[in-house]
């Protein structure tokens, strides 16, 4: 719960701007910061803030609150996600000097395999290099054997701790304004004062939601329910069936926006994203032959661990106030893609604001809010792109055209990979949706798509294309 005090979070909204003090609130040596949640956003905020503070000789105290132990297997140690670290994030972290250790990477992914009723096609990474990391947020599925690998979130938390953040193993139950400071109360009743509170508790926590009841102007992120489950397949089977490829399904199932099967060490993670994933949708998905085809013998095994986490589909407004900022999912994220990448971007933008400017609502509005608005605007384009995707999902002739275009591009190594590139960036979340959309307007892309739509739908059995299982059955 977050308690509203006499002045609540006053400076949270546009309407209270007039009341806001004009003065900035810079941090000083000894300033205290509470970061609530050590998911990617909280840990990366702590790490980068302490890094930047060190470079400007600012001595800060960062307390990172996290009740979860990421060394636990199953839901107790896990922040529920597909576990794909995008190509762009892998590259940005490497540029920052953060190379993901081998024992954190469950599998390096080299390609995407697109499954449709009209056939399957593999899209390889541009340089035939493992550029995408499949990780576990915790220490693997429920009831899994002890593994020689480690949690991604645990690794980031360790980086923050090595930079000087103090890990506080407590659930925060309340945040309130107290005179000129922020007060954080924990479930054990302990209370502490801070110069800044960073809310990085994600969307599966009650803490962020209660802001709505407290500050009239605050709108929490909009959420929808998703589904994740884990299959135990064994390394050998995974190598033979799934390989180092993420398997993406483009199926004619209403409300399903994205479905992917991600190979890890001995396990494979299945994620279903869309508009309120429910039993009916799941039954249709698991009943699809395209899904069964991915498993040994065409039989989908029982899953050993599952959850229904929520996902942020609209930015919190505004995701800041005086001495308060929301990063990662608590603030904003990319629609259905690269949530960890968005956590990194928002965490770093907030850290830059805090280290080089201050912690007033004005500081965040000027230096942090533009990034959130940029992500938000791109998500609106993303919504349109997913809508176009749903049209393709529904039209068999269009699916044939897409399959034909990708297959041809993958066969001819020197040819421009227009559709492959668009799908690659869409599946991997490596490029902004706006970028992806603009590329689909290129005359060469449109021309090639039209040619492939015609060619793929001509009744020519000799065409040099992947087999259409539908034709075979007919």
């Amino acid at each position, binding site marked *: 719960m977050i308690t509203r005090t006499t002045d609540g979070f006053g400076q949270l909204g546009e309407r209270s701007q007039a009341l806001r003090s004009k003065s900035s609130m810079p941090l000083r040596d000894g300033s205290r910061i509470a970061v609530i949640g050590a998911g990617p956003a909280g840990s990366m905020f702590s790490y980068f803030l302490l890094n930047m503070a060190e470079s400007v000789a600012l001595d800060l105290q960062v307390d990172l609150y996290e009740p979860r132990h990421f060394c636990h297997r199953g839901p107790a140690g896990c922040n529920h996600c597909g576990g794909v670290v995008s190509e762009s994030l*892998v*590259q*940005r972290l490497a540029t920052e*000097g953060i190379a993901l250790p081998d024992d954190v*990477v469950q599998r390096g992914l080299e390609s995407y395999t697109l499954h449709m009723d009209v056939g399957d096609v593999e899209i390889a990474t541009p340089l035939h290099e493992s550029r995408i990391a499949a990780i576990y947020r915790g220490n693997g599925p429920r009831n899994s054997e002890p593994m020689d690998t480690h949690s991604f979130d645990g690794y980031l938390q360790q980086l923050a701790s090595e930079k000087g953040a103090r890990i506080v193993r407590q659930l925060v139950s309340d945040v309130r304004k107290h005179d000129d400071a922020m007060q954080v109360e924990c479930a054990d009743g302990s209370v502490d004062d801070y110069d800044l509170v960073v809310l990085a508790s994600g969307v599966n926590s009650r803490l962020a939601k209660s802001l709505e009841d407290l500050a009239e102007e605050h709108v929490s992120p909009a959420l929808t329910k998703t589904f994740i489950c884990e299959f135990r397949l064994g390394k050998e089977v995974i190598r033979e069936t799934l390989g180092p490829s993420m398997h993406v399904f483009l199926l004619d199932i209403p409300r399903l926006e994205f479905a992917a099967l991600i190979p890890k060490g001995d396990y494979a993670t299945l994620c279903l994203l869309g508009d309120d994933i429910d039993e009916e949708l799941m039954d249709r998905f698991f009943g699809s032959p395209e899904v069964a085809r991915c498993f040994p013998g065409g039989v989908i095994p029982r899953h050993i661990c599952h959850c229904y986490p929520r996902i942020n589909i609209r930015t919190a407004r505004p995701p800041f106030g005086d001495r308060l900022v929301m990063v990662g999912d608590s603030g904003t994220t990319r629609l259905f893609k690269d949530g960890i990448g968005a956590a990194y971007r928002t965490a770093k933008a907030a850290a*830059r604001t805090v280290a080089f400017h201050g912690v007033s609502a004005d500081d965040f509005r000027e230096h942090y809010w533009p990034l959130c608005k940029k992500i938000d605007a791109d998500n609106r384009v993303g919504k349109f792109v997913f809508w176009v995707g749903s049209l393709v999902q529904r039209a068999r002739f269009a699916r044939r055209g897409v399959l034909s275009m990708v297959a041809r591009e993958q066969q001819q190594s020197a040819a421009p990979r227009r559709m492959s590139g668009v799908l690659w960036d869409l599946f991997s979340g490596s490029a902004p949706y706006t970028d992806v959309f603009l590329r689909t307007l290129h005359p060469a892309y449109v021309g090639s798509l039209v040619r492939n739509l015609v060619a793929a739908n001509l009744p020519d059995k000799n065409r040099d294309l992947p087999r259409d299982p539908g034709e075979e059955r007919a």
Partner: protein
Amino acid sequence: MATLGKEYKDREVIVRQGEAGNCMYVVQEGEVEAIAEVDGREMRLRKLGPNDFFGEMALFGAENRSATVRALGTARVLTIDKKSFLGGVQEDPSLAFRMVKVMSQRIRDLTDRLAEHHLKG
């Protein structure tokens, strides 16, 4: 355990001096050496290990590689695309902080070596 990047065998060339380039690299595992080829002779510029980067000049305008870089033993290296890097720096200039720091250290090292060479010569 699994890995990212691409593996190069001992003495395998990752980038060749004079060739066009549009990406930089970060060493993930093992070691690589940067070599200048002058009049057919090789001069080792530096040895690089995990988390070190090379080929960064290609990101900032220089089109041809200024040195050859090859693996010393088995090495694993990750490619950083020019577009992805510049897009990142445009959004977040602090992404280049570490590179600027390392590059200025490299300039300092070269200056020291040059001064030493002059004194000896």
